[in-house]
């Protein structure tokens, strides 16, 4: 951490003898600050005590450097800033600060409060500055910002919420009025809106303080919201913001109208810019000459306007129009608006005309040419969307023609597939058939070179796969339970191309690799055939065909090791797949090549680290650094240090949009699912190997910042994975251990950790209370209250899961094992509440609600144990044990469940101990039952660990697993050259065997898998179960 200690004070620090002083003079402050760095709690809190005393006695510290020093000394003590340092800062500005030379001191106080999230005092300070510095603009806008932020943070029940909102709204309105009434920008008074940032603040406040849709629409209709005026002033971001608001509030007419004007004027500027860089060519065709003439007229037009506009203003306007006219997000909004209009046909036609105009009249860079092609597609699809007769053949033909033309023109762009995906998803089944046929024909043209044809055929394959994942490709006839594929099955030949040298060289020089795409499609198909669906609730091993998973892995591995990667799709895909089969070390090796760290941990980290502790607890050690340390560091640095520092900077520079953006980002990070779940991962991992997490859940420096009522945000970014699934499915759904992060899972995990912290707490050994019975009663009542409140919090997300479990429509958010784990926790929580709330005497009857809880807990554990024993029936005996590596997650969750039961039993035992004679009898019986359930489960886990270890280290494993995967092709009894003709003869098996690099390639893959399994088994051996 960087610290800001006035040098003079530090000098004093070193020269003083350390003795306690409650004075709030500089010397006292220095001494307290020095003590705050010492080891004993009394020293560390000395400064805080001094601050509290000053506040209690309504003293004022008149020197802001002294307050800085206290601020520094109190950092990290977890006290409420607004009641301590914030209050000191306010009283300083209120009573000690005088405008003049020391203005900076007041600003400093304001920034410090803001950086510490103390908006109450910040607002009051800003209001004083605003009042005392009427000729400065910064305090005024800081004050407005503070009103606005404070109003959005106050609870709805606080009457000041509405008042501050109105104040913010009125003040911005006034500031806008001052600007509007001043013709020349040089003469803007200090409280007028002058900068683009102030303008954006005005817009944000004006819109967000209008609560109903109609109010917002009325506001957008006002002359102040004339979007084109803002654009003329060069404020592109304000213009775009207004466009988004019009879209959000569905003001289609206005939106479309603006597009017309923008395009007309924007095109002038576009042509003007080009003509200024081009001189008249010597030989011009007639049409070119015409165009040139037209441009001259436009040039003259703009030149004549330069009298009105100063050079600078004109340049700003031109720049803004040029930028807006080619802005793709605006195009999408305009086309979207046109579709909604009554006369949408005419509107879309107008837009299409404009596309033609731009494409013809301006010499566009290729990026914009492609944009115009896509705009055409969007218009075309918009037309059929708004068309009443969807079967219009002309439109259908035109859609396909455009799509085919786009593919032919852009086949070598990586983005080609993604650009078209949303349109392809809209095609009817008949259209998809024609489309595929046409691309197939294009890819067989002899006039094309091999690369082009190969690319087109690969794209066709990718499109074909996409359609497979769409319900349109299946039809179910009445009375028939199974679905029928609407396509005929074609097999794509890829064999000979691997050895084509010219082709290889060509691929090396391109950004795209058709073979990588084929491998991804092929292996995804294998995984689906293996039983991985898109709505899995974790690996249910009896349904998964491990053999096909091994095929997929070996094919991917062969492709990965044979050629350099064009992008990261393959390694990310493989890392996830290796995790799925329990090969954590190999997955980690691949993952480490991707450089995921710092800011990308939040969005990309979960692709690797989610549920890691359940499959590889051996990655943790009881003490020292943990696998999740980089996450904690990232969140701590960002939330506590980098964001506050930059909030201050943005305020100093008047970049208010950045201030608001940073505040929102800080709040988002504080409620990030990744942050919470990575924290939980560490807790589970450390517990697994017998350690104790550094903090209780309630004291954890990050977890304690969370507001439970807020929605926890999942920002996992799956874009790094290839995706050929029809929306909304993704490849990540298929190849992850279970459903992705969610608010529900994060909440359940967080509350579970709070519960575990509660029941794990042990009094220090030397704690010997004088009245043990009384203390025990107090303790019970505290625990009862806390457990009750955790249980209440837990209930809401848990109910959601219960509903999802019985409702086929709801997408599950937990794996099966997690579901049983949290069900167990739910029962344990209920039990803890009953046990602490119940009558405390030996013969007290058991609460009715509680009579079956313990049995239910035991049943949950039993269920988890039983399902772990299942393996797919056709798995040969020799590989059965190895199959369990693909189900480590379930083993990990069973271990966690057993541990929670064991901890609860231990907690109840401790509860009973000080009041042995009074404790209800049934409680002691429950303790025994819980202990025995936990022991049984732990015995199962121990056995399984041994079995895994033995299987991974048996000398014949390599052979048996190779034979299991490729049978006769491995032992030589079958030859790859005698290619079988039909699927039944093992045609697919042979093809995959070849693609996987045959004997050597496959053994290499299996060797790596076995190495990983051995290491993972070794890690599991460090798990503490007794």
């Amino acid at each position, binding site marked *: 951490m*960087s*610290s*800001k*200690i*006035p*040098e003079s004070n*530090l*000098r004093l*620090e070193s020269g003083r003898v350390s003795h306690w002083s409650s004075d709030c003079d500089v010397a006292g402050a220095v001494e307290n600050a020095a003590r705050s760095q010492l080891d004993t709690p009394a020293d560390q809190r000395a400064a805080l005590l001094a601050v509290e005393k000053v506040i209690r006695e309504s003293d004022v510290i008149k020197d802001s450097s002294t307050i800085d020093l206290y601020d520094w000394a109190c950092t990290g003590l977890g006290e409420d800033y607004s009641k301590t340092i914030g209050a000191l800062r306010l009283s300083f500005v209120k009573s000690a600060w005088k405008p003049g030379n020391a203005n900076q001191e007041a600003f400093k106080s304001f920034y410090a409060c803001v950086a510490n999230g103390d908006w109450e005092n910040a607002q009051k300070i800003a209001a004083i500055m605003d009042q005392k510095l009427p000729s400065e603009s910064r305090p005024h806008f800081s004050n407005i910002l503070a009103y606005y932020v404070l109003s959005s943070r106050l609870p709805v029940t606080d009457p000041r919420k509405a008042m501050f909102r109105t104040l913010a709204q009125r003040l911005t309105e006034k500031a806008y009025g001052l600007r509007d009434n001043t013709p020349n920008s040089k003469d803007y008074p200090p409280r007028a809106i002058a900068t683009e940032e102030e303008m954006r603040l005005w817009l944000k406040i004006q819109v967000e303080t209008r609560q109903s849709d109609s109010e917002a629409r009325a506001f957008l209709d006002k002359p102040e919201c004339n979007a084109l005026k803002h654009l003329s002033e*060069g404020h592109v*971001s304000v213009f775009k913001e207004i466009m988004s608001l019009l879209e959000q509030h569905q003001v289609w007419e206005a939106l479309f109208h603006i597009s017309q004007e923008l395009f007309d004027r924007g095109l002038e500027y576009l042509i003007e810019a080009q003509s200024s860089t081009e001189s008249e060519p010597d030989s011009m065709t007639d049409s070119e000459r015409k165009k040139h003439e037209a441009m001259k007229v436009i040039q003259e037009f703009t030149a004549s306007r330069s009298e009105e506009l100063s050079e600078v203003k004109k340049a*700003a306007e031109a*720049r803004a129009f040029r*930028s807006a006219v080619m*802005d*793709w997000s605006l195009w*999408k909004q305009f086309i979207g608006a046109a579709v909604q209009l009554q006369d949408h046909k005419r509107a879309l036609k107008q837009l299409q005309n404009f596309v033609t105009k731009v494409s013809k009249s301006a010499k566009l*860079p*290729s*990026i914009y040419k*492609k944009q115009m092609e896509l705009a055409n597609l969007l218009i075309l699809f918009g037309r059929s969307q708004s068309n009443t007769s969807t079967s219009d053949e002309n439109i259908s033909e035109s859609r396909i023609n455009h799509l085919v033309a786009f593919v032919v023109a852009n086949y070598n*762009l*990586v*983005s080609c597939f*993604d*650009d078209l995906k949303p349109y392809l998803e809209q095609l009817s089944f008949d259209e998809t058939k024609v489309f595929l046929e046409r691309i197939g024909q294009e890819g067989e043209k002899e006039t094309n070179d091999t690369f082009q044809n190969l690319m087109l055929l690969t794209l066709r394959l990718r499109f074909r796969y996409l359609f497979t994942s769409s319900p349109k490709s299946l039809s179910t006839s009445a009375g028939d339970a199974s679905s029928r594929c609407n396509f005929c099955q074609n097999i794509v030949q890829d064999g000979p191309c691997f050895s084509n040298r010219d082709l290889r060289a060509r691929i090396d020089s391109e*950004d795209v690799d058709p073979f990588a795409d084929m491998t991804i499609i092929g292996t995804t198909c294998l995984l689906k055939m293996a039983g991985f669906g898109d709505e899995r609730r974790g690996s249910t091993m009896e349904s998964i065909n491990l053999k096909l998973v091994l095929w997929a892995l070996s094919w991917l591995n062969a492709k990965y090791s044979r050629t350099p990667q*064009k*992008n*990261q799709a393959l390694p*990310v895909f493989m890392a996830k797949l290796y995790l799925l089969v329990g090969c954590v070390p190999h997955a980690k090796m691949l993952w480490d090549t991707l*450089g*995921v*760290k*710092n*800011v*990308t941990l*939040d*969005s*990309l980290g979960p692709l690797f680290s989610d549920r890691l502790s359940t499959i590889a607890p051996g990655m943790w050690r009881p003490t020292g650094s943990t696998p999740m340390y980089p996450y904690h560091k990232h969140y701590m*640095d*960002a939330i506590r240090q*980098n964001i506050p*520092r*930059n*909030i*201050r*900077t943005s305020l100093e*520079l008047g*970049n208010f*949009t950045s201030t608001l*953006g*940073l505040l*929102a*980002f800080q709040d*988002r990070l504080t409620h990030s699912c990744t942050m919470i779940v990575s924290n939980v991962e560490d807790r589970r991992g450390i517990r697994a190997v017998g350690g104790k997490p550094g903090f209780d859940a309630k004291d954890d420096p990050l977890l304690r910042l969370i507001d439970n009522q807020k929605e926890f945000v999942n*920002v996992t*970014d799956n*874009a*790094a994975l290839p995706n050929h699934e029809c929306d909304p499915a993704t490849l990540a759904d298929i190849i992850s251990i279970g459903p992705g992060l969610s608010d529900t899972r994060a909440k359940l995990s967080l509350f579970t950790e709070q519960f575990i912290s509660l029941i794990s707490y042990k009094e220090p050994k030397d704690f010997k209370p004088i009245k043990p019975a009384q203390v025990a009663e107090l303790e019970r009542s505290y625990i009862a209250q806390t457990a009750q409140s955790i249980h209440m919090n837990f209930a809401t997300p848990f109910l959601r899961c219960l509903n999802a479990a019985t409702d086929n429509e709801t997408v599950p958010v937990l794996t099966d094992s997690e579901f049983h784990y949290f069900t167990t926790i739910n029962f344990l929580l209920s039990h803890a509440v009953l046990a602490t709330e119940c009558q405390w005497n030996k013969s007290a009857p058991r609460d009715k609600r509680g009579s079956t809880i313990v049995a239910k807990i035991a049943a949950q554990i039993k269920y988890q144990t039983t399902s772990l024993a299942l393996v797919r029936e056709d798995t040969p005996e020799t590989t059965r044990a190895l199959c369990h590596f693909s189900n480590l997650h379930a083993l990990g969750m069973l271990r966690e469940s057993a541990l929670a039961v064991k901890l609860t039993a231990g907690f109840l035992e401790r509860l009973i101990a000080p009041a042995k004679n009074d404790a209800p009898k049934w409680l002691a019986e429950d303790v025994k039952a819980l202990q025995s359930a936990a022991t049984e489960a732990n015995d199962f886990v121990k056995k399984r660990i041994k079995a895994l270890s033995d299987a991974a280290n048996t000398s014949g494993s390599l052979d048996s697993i190779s034979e299991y995967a490729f049978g006769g092709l491995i032992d030589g009894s079958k030859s790859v050259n005698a290619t079988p003709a039909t699927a039944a003869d093992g045609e697919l098996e042979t093809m995959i065997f070849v693609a996987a690099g045959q004997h050597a390639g496959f053994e290499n893959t299996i060797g790596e898998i076995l190495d990983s399994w051995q290491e993972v088994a070794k890690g599991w051996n460090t798990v503490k179960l007794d």
Partner: protein
Amino acid sequence: MVTFRRFRPDDLNRISMCNMDPLTETYDSSFYLQYYAKWPGMFIVAEDDSGNIVGYVMGKLESSPAYFKQSPHYLPWHAHITALTVAPAYRRSGIGGVLTKRLEEEGDVGDAWFMDLFVRKSNTRAINFYKKSGYSVYRVVKNYYGDDVNDPTADGEDAYDMRKSMKRDTKGQHVRENGEKHAKMRTKRTSLEDPNALHNVKKQSRRNTPDVIMLRRLPGWRMLKNWINAEGDIQSTHDTGTTWYLLED
């Protein structure tokens, strides 16, 4: 298709396509957020239709502090490209070109004399790109990069300091031909573990400006008013907003 707009902090969740590329370094949050806080108009992203960030440029406007004026390396008011990256899958489709153009426009709005940047001498793709976009080599900075990506045993790699005149530089005074022939030595890093060394460094820097000074946490020691940061840019305590500043290594 892509849209170009200003950066928002949540974009950091969507940069996988750019940052999983080994050529693009992923920094700590302070790096991105300080540009957002200080120069929000100069942090521009290219976003695809699914919200993925497929390219971004980070830039700033600055000049050397006034009392550096006598130094031959004094930099007048100019814009600087700190980072420019386009996702491998989206290269050669014009995104890099649009991003730099937008940044240059911001440079013109900010009345900069020129735009400059540093690029590894071995990064021919980027050098070609910049040359195509109107930049030329102004000088070679010897051993600018501490490590050599191609040869870890080598001392360091040279950088090209490339420039392009902005509108204000009508006479082209801030660019030159044959910049490849002008070399500048990389500033030396001095690590200050011993507080007494500060005195020496001060002397040294007067003799041999400028110097990179890595200050470790030395309670009570004043930061020099200016230093050259790891990127080779001159920074003053003014940038950090505090006069008294202790840096941790």
